[in-house]
């Protein structure tokens, strides 16, 4: 099987498990919705600032939700010795990384679509610059998924996995929060040139973490 075929096999397996377990739709999505609602409640006295803060609040909600998705992705490998199964399956470590990151990324994209509609509606955001918002969201999500998968496997074999994943992932994806928020803000303000520049930086972040993951995931999985 080719490298891409192995990645697709792992991604398909993870997505099938999630489709059946419905953790994203039944738990992660409601969690993200609650976070967005809580922000609205907290800032209710100053509702006029909500449209301005919407990009940052949206990406904070996405990042918090991504922690659940990353933890879940490695939790399924902890049950019944799945991690040993992956190691013994004969799959390339880089392909396993790409497959797991792709599955996390697709789940986050689904969540972002629903969340974006909710944020636009709840925070009274006037939608502009979708031509940049969509690619910015795609590369930001790729970066979050890649970084989350790298740090997820680092914590995979540890008993403190659930509490360690946020400590490792959140600082690592802070540049995505900054870049994606700025890209969204500028796109909504109609400054597409600036938004594209931030989108380019997000693409570089995603590419770097994807390369890092492809190169290191195999050895990290062995040591987990």
């Amino acid at each position, binding site marked *: *099987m080719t490298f891409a075929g*192995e990645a697709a*096999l792992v991604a398909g*397996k993870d997505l*099938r*498990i999630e489709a*059946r*377990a419905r953790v994203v739709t039944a738990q992660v999505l409601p969690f993200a919705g609650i976070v967005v609602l809580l922000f609205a409640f907290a800032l209710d006295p100053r509702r006029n600032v909500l449209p301005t803060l919407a990009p940052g609040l949206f990406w904070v909600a996405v990042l918090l939700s991504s922690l659940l998705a990353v933890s879940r992705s490695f939790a*399924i490998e902890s*049950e*019944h*010795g*799945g991690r*040993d*199964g992956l*190691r*013994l*399956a*004969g*799959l*390339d*470590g880089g392909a396993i990384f790409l497959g797991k990151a792709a599955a996390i990324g697709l789940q986050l994209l689904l969540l972002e679509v629903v969340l974006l509609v909710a944020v636009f509606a709840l925070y009274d955001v006037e939608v502009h610059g979708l031509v940049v918002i969509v690619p910015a969201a795609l590369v930001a999500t790729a970066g979050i998924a890649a970084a989350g998968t790298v740090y997820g496997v680092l914590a995979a074999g540890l008993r403190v996995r659930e509490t360690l994943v946020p400590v490792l992932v959140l600082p690592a994806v802070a540049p995505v929060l900054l870049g994606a928020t700025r890209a969204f803000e500028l796109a909504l303000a109609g400054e597409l040139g600036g938004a594209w520049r931030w989108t380019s930086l997000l693409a570089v972040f995603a590419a770097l973490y994807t390369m890092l993951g492809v190169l290191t995931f*195999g*050895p990290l999985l*062995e*040591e987990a």
Partner: protein
Amino acid sequence: MPVVAVRDAVCLLGHFPALAGADLEVEAGEIVWLAGPNGAGKTTLLRLIAGLVRCHSGSVEVLGHDLAHDGPGRLRHAHRRRLALVGHDTNCYDDLTVAENLRFAVRAAGCPPAAGEAALSTFGLAELAAVTHAALSAGQRRRLALAIALCRQPELVLLDEPHGGLDTEARHALDQTLTTMAAGGGTVIFASHEAERAGALAARAVRVEGGRTVGGIAERAVERVGT
């Protein structure tokens, strides 16, 4: 050249020496039984041979691959496809069906789909193909783990308490499959506390105790070592 050559292997789990100078040499076509009390190091020895734990000193050669020198992290994925390990866990996913778990393993190993279907039939799982792993009984899960491991037709099979939880029919099917594999040049190493069954299946027994082996290399003649 032996399929497995473990020499003076020391394996630390934390600070505990799970193996404290184990020796084992196994030729192609052999069925070897690892006997010994709980905590003797049988499972660690099997995991060491599979490349799942690191050897801190000594040497480990498996299917011509030097694990002690390269380290398990460098064990190439193509090499891994030549061996199979069934340990205490099934290595399966609760939310996937029997057929989906098997299909994943078959495709990962690059085997034809027919190999999976044959394994389902051999281990009496055909009627359970659409049942999720979570809904299986302990014995059915064991059968699935064995089917997944053996459908790949590995050159080296490592089994930890393979008969545990199996009914009479499944035990017979397993023994028959292992014997056929060995007759075809495959190698089987298994740990078991079921002396009678293991003794009948294995051509040689190696006793593991306190992280060391007795009869691993020097006493190559067929012998029976009780648990």
